[in-house]
């Protein structure tokens, strides 16, 4: 009997690892086209200022400098505001960034001039020789102040800093609040952070004037969309532009923007000069010029009955968009629609204002509003538990949507403009698993023991539902070549998610080949020209199902072609070991390699039923709406009240993202997300001063978690398949990061209950925690600090 390994669901080592481990990856800075010249950008040192003069004469004369550009030299198509990405009726002032600053700069780091030189060193020398006179304007920095009447304006022409005001309502929250036994209100503040991928951004562009073909390598998460915008901005047909997202050193969201100024200017300069141009962002630039996230201020309330059952929830919040809002209001929509989580909330009111400030642009970063929504909701649930004297797990249990209620319509409209309908899930099972694994029943005893040992330790446990796998579509082409190998091309880019392996697993199963014989190409518009991008935990779901459909189509084609070759009936044929054979007669078989040749004959005819020549098929997957994984995280956190330092003693994730393609990769996604979540809670914070200067522009000031801070993450999975796609998979890219602030805050409250304060802000850090402890005073503060000395 022929045996074939099944790969789906298996812990397969990654196909891409050998080249990455040996330094054989191709990252953007590894590309060195012949004759390449180097770009560097002069960036605004002011948050808000009028440019009164730019003099580039001296810079242009420096030996080795090839060109210096300011906005005055740019053609009309790229001298105005760059494209508006995602519109919304509520987004009334959709202001977008400029390739090079117009008459005024609106944030520190905004590009003002571009230098092209023989080396990056010389290009940076030339930046120092450009003279710019600025007339500083009052900076708009504080989010609340920016939203008030009379604030200085980031964009004078619109007469306000508020660019969007959006409300969604379910039921009647006022009535629910009026009749509720209890109503609790809180203010929650979440500050800025940055994705800080280990590789900064970069663009390399080559223009071949003879054949009029532009090739652009770009650290983007959306190469097809970049190609399409370049086509529009540079006046070339899409077909003459190839955009390749090579190996990318982490994306996490902000590498999807159409278009960053550099993504337009570098290709344009290459066309102007007829020479390849390369720009590699340095870390300092990355801090100021790559989009940020996270800043929101929520005023939230919850109404419950005497048993802690939710009657209504309301949040009114401010969203800091930074100086422009190209990406639209996706982040606040995601925040306000994620907030409702796994709970039955009959009445809900969410309302936000998106506000311009003189700070870096905000666009989605891993979580993309989800951590905010979950933080607000879970903090409200904790408040209910505390005020009503209920167990915090029991309060959640009581309010869960039950397994028989799916599909569950929340009544909201999600970020994809589709109804927010939870497709499937088993929330109580996930929670009970977490309760069991973290030892919740034994926690009071354990806590008492820690206390006796003089240790301050708290437990946190929080729930969330994650929107994933939204449309519009992705596609894939699968080809069996005469060498017997299978080649697949999809345009979603890869930033470490293991697509070369996960997609290969799906294909290997369909065609009964070895997973290492499936070669996947991602993120190359020249290999596959249709697609959306890698974001919103969607590549595995949307592209993964397109891969599945294409592979199944090739399988069907292989059987069809083999039926003729073997003179057998299609229904009698099976695939195994890279061959099609007649069931029961394994010696009557033909290899896929032979079929690939047979399917592309030199003479004769192609049967009508073959659809196309070759053992090849392209398929698209276009889900009508997203699919919704759910999870519960729990942690034990120890606080050193003398120093304000915290230690994660345990971290547990119980997660249900439907069918699992590769547990190795899935667990990696979750662990990495938790690490970023821990950073979001306690180490990472972007700090602006009153003048709008970004004070945190190095890894000495902006602290990323290291091996010393990130604990082992314990992970358990439940698998509730989704009916939304043939593979039954849900997304998992953001599962790790979403509830970490909520878990951390609850654990701190638990640990520090004696001090009588509750956490309402994120991120914290040792000094801020010490500040809170000092303000709270006794018991531990003075006494223990003194004892320690």
């Amino acid at each position, binding site marked *: 009997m022929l045996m074939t390994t099944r790969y789906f669901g298996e812990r397969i080592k990654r196909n891409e690892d050998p080249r990455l481990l*040996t330094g054989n990856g191709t990252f953007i800075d590894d590309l060195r086209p012949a004759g390449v010249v180097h770009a560097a950008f002069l960036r605004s040192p002011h948050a808000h200022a009028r440019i009164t003069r730019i003099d580039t004469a001296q810079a242009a004369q420096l030996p080795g400098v090839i060109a210096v550009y300011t906005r005055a030299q740019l053609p009309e198509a790229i001298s105005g505001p760059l494209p508006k990405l995602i519109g919304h009726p509520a987004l009334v002032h959709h202001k977008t960034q400029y390739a090079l600053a117009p008459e005024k700069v609106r944030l520190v780091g905004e590009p003002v001039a571009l230098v092209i030189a023989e080396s990056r060193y010389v290009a940076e020398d030339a930046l120092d020789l450009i003279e710019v006179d600025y007339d500083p304007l009052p900076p708009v920095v504080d989010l609340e102040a920016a939203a008030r009447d009379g604030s200085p304006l980031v964009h004078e022409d619109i007469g306000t800093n508020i660019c969007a005001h959006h409300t969604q309502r379910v039921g009647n929250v006022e009535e629910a609040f009026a009749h509720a036994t209890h109503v609790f209100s809180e203010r929650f503040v979440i500050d800025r952070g940055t994705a800080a991928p*280990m590789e900064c951004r970069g663009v390399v562009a080559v223009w071949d004037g003879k054949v009029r073909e532009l090739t652009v390598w770009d650290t983007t998460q959306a190469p097809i969309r970049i190609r399409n915008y370049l086509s529009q901005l540079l006046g070339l047909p899409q077909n003459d532009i190839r955009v390749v997202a090579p190996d990318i050193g982490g994306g996490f969201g902000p590498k999807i923007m159409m278009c960053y100024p550099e993504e337009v200017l570098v290709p344009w300069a290459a066309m102007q000069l007829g020479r390849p141009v390369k720009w590699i962002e340095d*870390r300092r630039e990355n801090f100021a010029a790559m989009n940020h996230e996270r800043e929101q201020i929520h005023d939230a309330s919850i109404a419950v009955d005497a048993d802690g059952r939710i009657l209504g929830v309301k949040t009114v919040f401010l969203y800091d968009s930074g100086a422009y809002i190209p990406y639209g209001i996706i982040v606040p929509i995601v925040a306000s629609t994620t907030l409702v989580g796994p709970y039955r909330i009959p009445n809900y009111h969410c309302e936000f204002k998106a506000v311009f400030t003189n700070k870096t642009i905000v666009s989605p970063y891993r979580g993309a509003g989800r951590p905010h929504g979950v933080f607000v909701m879970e903090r409200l649930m904790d408040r209910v538990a505390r005020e009503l004297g209920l167990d915090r797990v029991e309060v959640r249990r009581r309010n869960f949507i039950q397994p028989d209620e799916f599909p569950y319509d929340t009544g909201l409209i999600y970020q994809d403009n589709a109804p927010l309908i939870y497709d499937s899930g088993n929330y109580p099972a996930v929670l009970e698993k977490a309760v069991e694994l973290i030892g919740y029943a034994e926690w009071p005893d354990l806590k008492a023991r820690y206390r006796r040992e003089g240790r301050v330790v708290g437990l946190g446990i929080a729930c969330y539902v994650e929107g994933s796998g939204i449309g519009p579509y992705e596609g894939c082409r699968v080809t069996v070549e005469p060498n017997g190998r299978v080649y697949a091309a999809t345009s979603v880019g890869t930033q470490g998610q293991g697509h070369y392996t996960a997609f290969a697993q799906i294909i290997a199963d369909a065609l009964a080949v070895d997973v290492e014989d499936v070669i996947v190409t991602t993120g190359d518009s020249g290999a596959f020209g249709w697609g959306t991008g890698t974001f919103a935990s969607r590549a595995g779901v949307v592209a993964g199902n397109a891969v599945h459909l294409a592979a199944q189509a090739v399988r069907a084609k292989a059987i069809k072609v083999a039926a003729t070759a073997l003179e057998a009936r299609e229904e009698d044929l099976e695939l195994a070991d890279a061959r099609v054979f007649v069931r029961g007669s394994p010696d009557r078989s033909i290899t896929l390699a032979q079929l690939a040749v047979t399917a592309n004959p030199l003479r004769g005819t192609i049967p009508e039923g073959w659809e196309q020549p070759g053992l090849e098929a392209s398929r698209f997957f276009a889900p009508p709406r997203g699919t919704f994984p759910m999870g519960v995280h729990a942690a034990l956190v120890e606080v050193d009240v003398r120093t304000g330092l915290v230690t994660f003693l345990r971290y547990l994730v119980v997660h249900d993202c439907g069918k699992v393609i590769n547990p*190795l990769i899935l667990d990696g996604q979750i662990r990495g997300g938790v690490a970023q979540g821990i950073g979001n809670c306690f180490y990472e914070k972007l700090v602006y001063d009153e003048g709008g200067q970004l004070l945190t522009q190095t890894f000495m000031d902006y602290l990323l978690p290291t091996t010393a801070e990130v604990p082992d993450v314990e992970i358990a999975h439940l698998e509730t398949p989704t009916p939304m796609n043939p593979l039954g998979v849900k997304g998992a890219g953001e599962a790790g990061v979403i509830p970490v602030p909520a878990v951390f805050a609850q654990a701190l409250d638990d640990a520090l209950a004696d001090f009588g304060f509750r956490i309402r802000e994120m991120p914290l850090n040792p000094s801020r925690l010490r500040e809170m402890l000092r303000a709270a005073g006794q018991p531990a503060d003075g006494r223990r600090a003194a004892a320690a000395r």
Partner: protein
Amino acid sequence: MTHGTATSRRRRKAGPVTRATITLRVNGAERTATVEVRKTLVDFLREDLGLTGTHVGCEHGVCGACTILLNGEAVRSCLLFAVQADGAEIATVESLGTPDRLHPLQEAFREHHGLQCGFCTPGMVMSAVDLCARRPSPDEREVREWLEGNICRCTGYH
């Protein structure tokens, strides 16, 4: 004395030294090159020698992506000038395994999914090589302490 004075005068006239010739051993092979004195070692390795396995993550010595071995010791190649490595023995990630024949440490990273995007990985592996050379059987605590200087944004260090 006289000779020295003449040399300094000539140098003053000619302006500061901007280029220098260096000779070093990289991954076992002797290399000689004339470089700008301000060129960092990592730029020299990547641009002049084409060894692009060593990556540049922060250029201020925190992230560790550019970690190489200099005379057997793990260092940040973004914090050194190429001229400072004159006469040194250097090992980069290219000195370890090949895609078909991974170094045992590289194999271990693969086995345990110790990499995702792979950008910090060469630096991480070189730090690990350095650790194993010093302590052939480190415990978890030692591994965590040793790798503290290599930031990874993808894996959570598992």
